[in-house]
């Protein structure tokens, strides 16, 4: 066994063991859930079995059908999540592929064009997966939830034909964009990319209307009858979800593309390949983290709108049944930020001159750790009776205050600023400002950070002394001040480092392998987070298909335990990555040589890249 292959087998082993453990856990948990559900539904099922045979006359009376073994809910849940993950990827990649292509077009740097094409190569297979999973989901909804599907069709029927037509248009633009690479003039190709993005985003907006309607229905009368299709589309959480998904898709897509770069880096045989895929991983990660930074703000807006729509939904979401999932979310996001910063710090090793910034790493790490702790601290602590008595209740007098939004918002804002500072140091790695006002510029940047951090902390503390409405409003100046800091510091930095002196090269490809594993970790964590938060958004309705309008009367009309839900999401994530591995493998086939008759095997690959002439290294 060659040394190069060890990580692949280790990863395979980990995946297989994780899959086995997850399936075992889910199976055990599932058995328990099913027993509970069976107890609840035994009467209903008996009635169903004893009921009349389905005929054309009474076919509309079927409300549910049962999916074998795992039940209808879990089956639809897994397929919907897989469809969503692929759809997110397929929508996100064209966005940043186009941006990278545009950078290449304006800078005349061929590397960017090549990178954009490399990203686009992942799209073709992913698009087929998305479409297949979408079709499967539609069939499953029609088969297993006919009544709900009929109702949603009644509300949204005018949107279905445009959706399908747009899907055709997307297929056309996507394949023209991919296969037309280098075949059209750059302007025509860029126009194709713009059209692809516009169509893709519109498709997502339409689908978002269907699912957000189920959470926060609008455009209907008290009995659920349709009053306005536009009203149903523009329901209360439609735009927050649109914005949140748009940003999240980019973060997710970037992380998967970075994982692809990492995968190719670890298997690269030449220095050129390593340099290219190191760079690809870096760009993917940059995109992911750049999109991650504003994501908490979009999520907060969504949560606020849910609370505003209904106190009940808001409390179920943040303070009630699903609140513990937000602790898991905090742990995962804390890990995301930690891993993203870690990647940047390790990456500095390949930048000549970045050693001078190493001394700052411990302070950045301390800031991330403290913010991570604050974000992950629950409001009511898990405690034994004895521990609770010592604390005087389930809220710790000191830590209890960290469990509410004032503290969380403060932590996340500082976490974002810390990550931004890591980016700033990375960017400055091998450069030295030559402008006469460099010292003043640094001082002003430092002051901006100091003032903004103090302001964010002040508002966080002040939030405890004002009423809820004011406290919630304080998140806006917190966010704006952080955005101000990031924009103003970036502007100063751009001017300060114009014509900067280079103190050494960036040695692309000379990066430790552990940085690439950090990219895998980021991709898996993003995906897991998407699955968990997707479950929260959908599960929020609890025993309603359409909240307050159509009740879920199926045997699955109960909220599963946290462990069971996490298990289902984990298995879904593993299935997704199995599919993604197939996508990666298929994407790599085009770089391989043709099969040679007589030898029974393919000729050895030269790696599919010839980057020396592009000045990659």
């Amino acid at each position: 066994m060659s040394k190069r292959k060890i990580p692949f087998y280790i990863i395979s082993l980990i995946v297989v063991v994780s899959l086995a453990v997850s399936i075992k856990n889910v199976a055990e948990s599932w058995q328990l859930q099913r027993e509970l559900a069976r107890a609840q539904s035994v009467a209903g099922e008996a009635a169903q079995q004893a009921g009349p045979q389905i005929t054309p006359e009474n076919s509309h009376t079927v409300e549910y059908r049962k999916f074998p073994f795992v039940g209808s809910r879990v089956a639809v849940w897994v397929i919907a999540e897989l469809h969503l993950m692929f759809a997110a990827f397929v929508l996100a990649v064209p966005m940043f592929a186009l941006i990278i292509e545009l950078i290449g077009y304006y800078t005349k740097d061929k590397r960017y064009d090549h990178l954009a094409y490399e990203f686009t190569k992942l799209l073709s297979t992913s698009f087929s997966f998305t479409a297949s999973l979408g079709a499967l989901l539609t069939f499953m909804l029609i088969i297993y939830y006919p009544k709900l599907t009929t109702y949603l069709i009644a509300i949204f029927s005018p949107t279905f034909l445009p959706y399908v037509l747009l899907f055709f248009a997307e297929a056309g633009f996507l394949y023209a964009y991919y296969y037309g690479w280098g075949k059209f003039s750059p302007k025509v190709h860029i126009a194709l990319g713009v059209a692809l993005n516009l169509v893709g985003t519109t498709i997502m907006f339409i689908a978002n209307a269907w699912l957000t309607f189920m959470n926060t229905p609008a455009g209907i009368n008290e009995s659920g009858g349709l009053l306005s299709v536009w009203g149903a589309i523009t329901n209360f959480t439609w735009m927050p979800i649109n914005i949140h998904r748009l940003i999240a898709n980019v973060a997710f897509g970037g992380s998967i593309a970075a994982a692809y770069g990492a995968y190719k880096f670890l298997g690269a045989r030449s220095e050129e390949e390593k340099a290219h895929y190191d760079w690809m991983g870096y760009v993917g990660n940059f995109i992911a983290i750049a999109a991650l930074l504003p994501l908490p703000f979009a999520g907060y807006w969504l949560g606020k709108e849910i609370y505003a729509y209904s106190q009940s939904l808001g409390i179920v979401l943040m303070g009630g049944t699903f609140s513990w999932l937000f602790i898991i979310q905090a742990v995962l996001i804390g890990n995301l930020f930690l891993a993203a910063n870690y990647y940047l710090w390790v990456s500095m090793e390949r930048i000549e001159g970045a050693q001078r910034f190493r001394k700052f790493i411990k302070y950045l790490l301390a800031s991330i750790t403290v913010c991570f702790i604050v974000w992950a601290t629950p409001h009511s602590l898990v405690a034994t009776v004895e521990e609770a008595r010592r604390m005087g209740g389930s809220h710790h007098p000191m830590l209890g205050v960290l469990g509410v939004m004032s503290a969380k918002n403060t932590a996340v804002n500082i976490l974002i600023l810390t990550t931004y500072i890591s980016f700033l140091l990375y960017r400055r790695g091998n450069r030295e400002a030559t402008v006469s006002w460099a010292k003043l510029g640094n001082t002003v940047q430092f002051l901006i950070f100091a003032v903004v951090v103090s302001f964010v902390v002040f508002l966080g503390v002040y939030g405890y002394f004002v009423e809820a409405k004011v406290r919630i409003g304080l998140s806006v100046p917190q966010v704006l001040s952080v955005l101000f800091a990031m924009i103003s510091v970036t502007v100063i930095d751009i001017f300060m480092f114009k014509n900067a002196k280079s103190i050494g090269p960036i040695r692309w490809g000379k990066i430790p392998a552990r940085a690439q594993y950090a990219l895998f970790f980021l991709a898996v964590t993003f995906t897991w987070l998407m699955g968990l938060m997707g479950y929260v958004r959908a599960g929020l309705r609890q025993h309603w298909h359409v909240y307050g309008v159509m009740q879920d009367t199926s045997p699955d009309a109960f909220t599963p335990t946290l462990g069971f839900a996490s298990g289902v999401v984990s298995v879904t994530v593993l299935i997704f990555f199995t599919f993604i591995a197939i996508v990666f493998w298929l994407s790599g086939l085009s770089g391989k040589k043709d099969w040679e008759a007589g030898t029974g095997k393919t000729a050895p690959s030269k790696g599919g890249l010839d980057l020396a002439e592009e000045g990659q290294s």
Partner: protein
Amino acid sequence: MNYLVLAPIVLVMIALRFTRLNILGWLAVWWIAAYLAISYGIEPPLPSSIIGMFMGIVTLALLAYLTVRTDDMNFVKRAAIRFLTDKKYTLPLALTVIALPLLAAFNVYLDAAKAPQPPAAGRTVHPPPPTEITFKGKKIDLVNGVNPYRELQAEDPEAFRAHLANGRKVYFQNCVFCHGDNMEGKGLFAHAFDPLPANFQDPTTIAMLQETYLFWRIAKGAPGLPEESTPWASAMPAWEHFLSEEEIWDVILFMYEYTGHKPREKEEVH
């Protein structure tokens, strides 16, 4: 805060700043300091679940620091290999191999030696309310409803004060025994309950909630808690059997007045 514990930790950390310790020693000191500060430096002590979580994060951060620099990582790798292969470390290695299971066994002993008690469990503190409830045959809208006497605060202060006085009477006749005379959840009966009664002075309890939520909790008590997120383990009586609607709204007014908190208002949907 337990300053007797925290002060020496801070002194050691300051001393560490002027000591030339290798990366392993440096990280070990930080880990131990964090453990001591989190476990013994905070009063009242944190539950073990939180200590575990915090230490998990600290350990992750220290591991990240250890592996950020290839030089540091190689130093640790070489040190570990030396410790495992160099003959001069045979005795310490043997002692380590023996000590590890002994430490695990000692930990098991400590756990087993503790007095039996119910296991720690995560609780959902805010039960999700229904959209409406029926109170003595009348529908109360929990989503869009308001305290009908709240508006008197601006329109008729005298009438408002009368409602507050009535709320005070209701509180001290019924609620004080569990929730306490200072509304901190330390009433005479409080120590018989698990979980303890809610502390209304805490800015993270009633200040976060709409008045309709409190109405629901007071009116329906433990029997009216939702089926999800069980067990709720609440001893709160359903006060709809003992109090009128007006008395409940009044006591809610009094709770906010007494604690100085303001109820959460229904937000506008954008």
